[in-house]
């Protein structure tokens, strides 16, 4: 009987390991877009938004461009670097795709750069705001970055605050020890100093720390007028609650990206009041449709209604960003008449459309990125239940309100 048991165990074990190999053959004319995304793992929130945006974009083109069927090759990178490298290698070397969208999280995009370099397909990067990534792809004409660089989160608020409250105010910075906080710190320091602020404290907190009060109490001693928090949403929730509870008496709170997300507001409740941030996209703005391609780049409210109908939730930044980036890519393929990546790249560079994210046009940046779109950000403040746009003056509908 024991022998039988072992055999049974062996068979069960073998079954666990048994997966059938095979691929799918493609015969008709197709355009293949590789999409290495964070479909599982800790950055799944980005990947799932990316997936939705892509789906919407394919739908907007009814699945075809220039007589070719669009085929999106989704690959799960499991939010790990190894996953990103494997997926990139698979897409580039086996599937031989000429077009890539994703990944989105900064660290994973950085990890994907060396793999991308092997064949240099046309790569749309709707994420990664880290300056180290901008340096890594400086001069690369096949990389199209469609997300604002990190400094966009600081130049806007710094200038807007300086204009509203005058120079010489004191700024304290609290940042996380992860890639996000570290990469933002030098930019924040530089741009607030340049705008005429005095940096009085920079305090570091651990990612996922259970208590950030020590850093806040040290900041309190320096009596700043402005507190800038550089961290991702997970830590942004804890820090916002603790700032509120600690009653620091700092009238102006600025967050890197998290104050724009509805999930963050839901999580911190009334502690969200007064937070300021720079945004590239926000649902509910009055943005008109593109005059030439109104079906692909509809007015913001129409697109948002369609999105909400399909997914039963409001679109967030990455939904909109990936949709817009993918739609621009598809349009460029259409205008190039097919999938020649050099011609598509040329068309993309010549494109100028009005999108829900603002003007869709690629320009070089001083930092060395060759193709950059959507680097323009506007500054908002949460005032009670309302979101007030405070900068730039041309599109503002209200003024800063310091926290009492």
């Amino acid at each position, binding site marked *: 009987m024991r022998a039988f048991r072992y055999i049974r165990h062996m068979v069960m074990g073998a079954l666990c390991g048994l997966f059938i190999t095979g691929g799918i053959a493609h015969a008709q004319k197709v355009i293949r877009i590789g999409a290495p995304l964070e479909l*599982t*793992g*800790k*950055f*799944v*929130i980005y990947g*799932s938004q990316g997936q939705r945006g892509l789906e919407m974009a394919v739908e907007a083109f009814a699945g075809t461009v220039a007589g070719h069927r669009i085929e999106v090759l989704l690959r799960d990178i499991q939010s790990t670097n190894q996953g990103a490298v494997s997926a990139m290698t698979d897409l580039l070397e086996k599937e031989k795709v000429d077009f890539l969208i994703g990944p989105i999280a900064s660290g994973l995009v950085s990890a994907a750069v060396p793999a991308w370099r092997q064949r240099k397909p046309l790569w749309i990067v709707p994420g990664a705001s880290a300056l180290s990534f901008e340096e890594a792809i400086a001069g690369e004409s096949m990389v199209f970055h469609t997300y604002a660089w990190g400094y966009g989160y600081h130049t806007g608020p710094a200038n807007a605050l300086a204009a509203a409250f005058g120079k010489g105010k004191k700024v304290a910075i609290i940042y996380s*020890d992860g890639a996000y906080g570290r990469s933002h710190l030098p930019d924040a320091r530089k741009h607030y100093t340049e705008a005429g602020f005095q940096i009085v404290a920079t*305090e*570091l*907190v*651990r990612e*996922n*720390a*259970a*208590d*950030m*009060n*020590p*850093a806040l*109490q*040290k900041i309190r*001693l320096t009596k700043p007028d402005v507190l800038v928090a550089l961290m991702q*949403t*997970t*830590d942004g*929730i*804890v820090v916002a*609650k*603790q700032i*509120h*509870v*600690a*009653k620091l008496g700092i009238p102006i709170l600025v967050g890197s990206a998290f104050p724009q997300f509805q*999930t*963050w507001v*839901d*999580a*911190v*409740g*009334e*502690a969200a009041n007064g937070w300021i941030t720079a945004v590239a996209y926000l649902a509910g703005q009055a943005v008109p449709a593109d005059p030439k391609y109104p079906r692909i780049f509809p007015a913001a409210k129409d697109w948002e209604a369609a999105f909400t109908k399909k997914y039963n939730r409001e679109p967030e930044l990455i939904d909109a960003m990936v949709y817009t980036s993918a739609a621009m890519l598809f349009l460029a393929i259409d205008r190039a008449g097919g999938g020649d990546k050099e011609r598509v790249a040329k068309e993309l560079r010549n494109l100028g459309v009005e999108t829900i994210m603002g003007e869709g046009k690629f320009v070089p940046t001083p930092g060395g990125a060759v193709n950059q779109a959507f680097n323009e950000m506007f500054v908002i403040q949460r005032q009670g239940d309302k979101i007030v746009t405070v900068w730039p003056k041309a599109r503002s509908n209200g003024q800063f309100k310091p926290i009492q």
Partner: protein
Amino acid sequence: MTLLPQFLLDALLLGGLYCLMAVGLALCFGVTRIINFAHGEMIMFGAYGAFLLSVHFGIDPLLSLPLVALGVALIGFLVFKLCVQRVLDAPHVNQILLLFGVGLILQNIAVLIFTGDERSVTTAYSLASDQFFGMMVAYGRLIAFAVSIGLTVGLIVWLRISEMGRAIQAVAQQRDAAKLMGINVTAMYMVSFMVSAALGSATGAAMSFLLTITPFMGFHILIKGFAIVVLGGLGSVGGTLIAAFVLAFVETGVSYYVPEGGGWAEGVALAVLLMVLILRPRGFLGQAVDN
């Protein structure tokens, strides 16, 4: 204004939180000798339970805590019956990997059910605070502290006084002798595994209004809890209590008084752990454990 009173208060409150993080793990290890690598996921499910009940039915996490604990105890029951029971006598490595796998499964089920969105419960008290004697007292943290200490003391009393608690202790101390005394060892294992899961979910519920809830929150908490359990002496609930406060005071102290201390705090805590392990492997109050 000096930072000293605030430091003492913060460390104390954090200590309570750490205590609850670790006490479930300590019970599970003390009795079954199993390091529950899926304990973080029990905490995570507890946090989501409290969150969902709060959002959909408006039930305060403190009120829903017993319900959540019961639900997660059931998950613990399933995990024990389906998996853990089969590896009770297997080497530690098998148990660790098995429970790591279970944790991975639970984590990904959570992603499918709850999505990866960051959550946190907002209650009136979680955002309230008042100043006393130069200290800002955060009511949310104070309440979580009270819940932690209450549950930990409750556990110690239950283990000391109730028949089942004493049977569990007997199993923890000498399983063969306990068996000879007519105690159903496997049943005691199951009960402690379920109680441990319930304590984990209580941790999650008590933190649901302080920290961020995601499907991946468990792993960091697990590692921290693990360090505390070892520092206190594997399996000793009382030792865990002491270790939680020692670690909280060390970490908070470093955060307050060392430049960039917030980043070094965890490293210093690990150094303390390593030192204690080398000088006194059984931890503060632990029994010697072989293999």
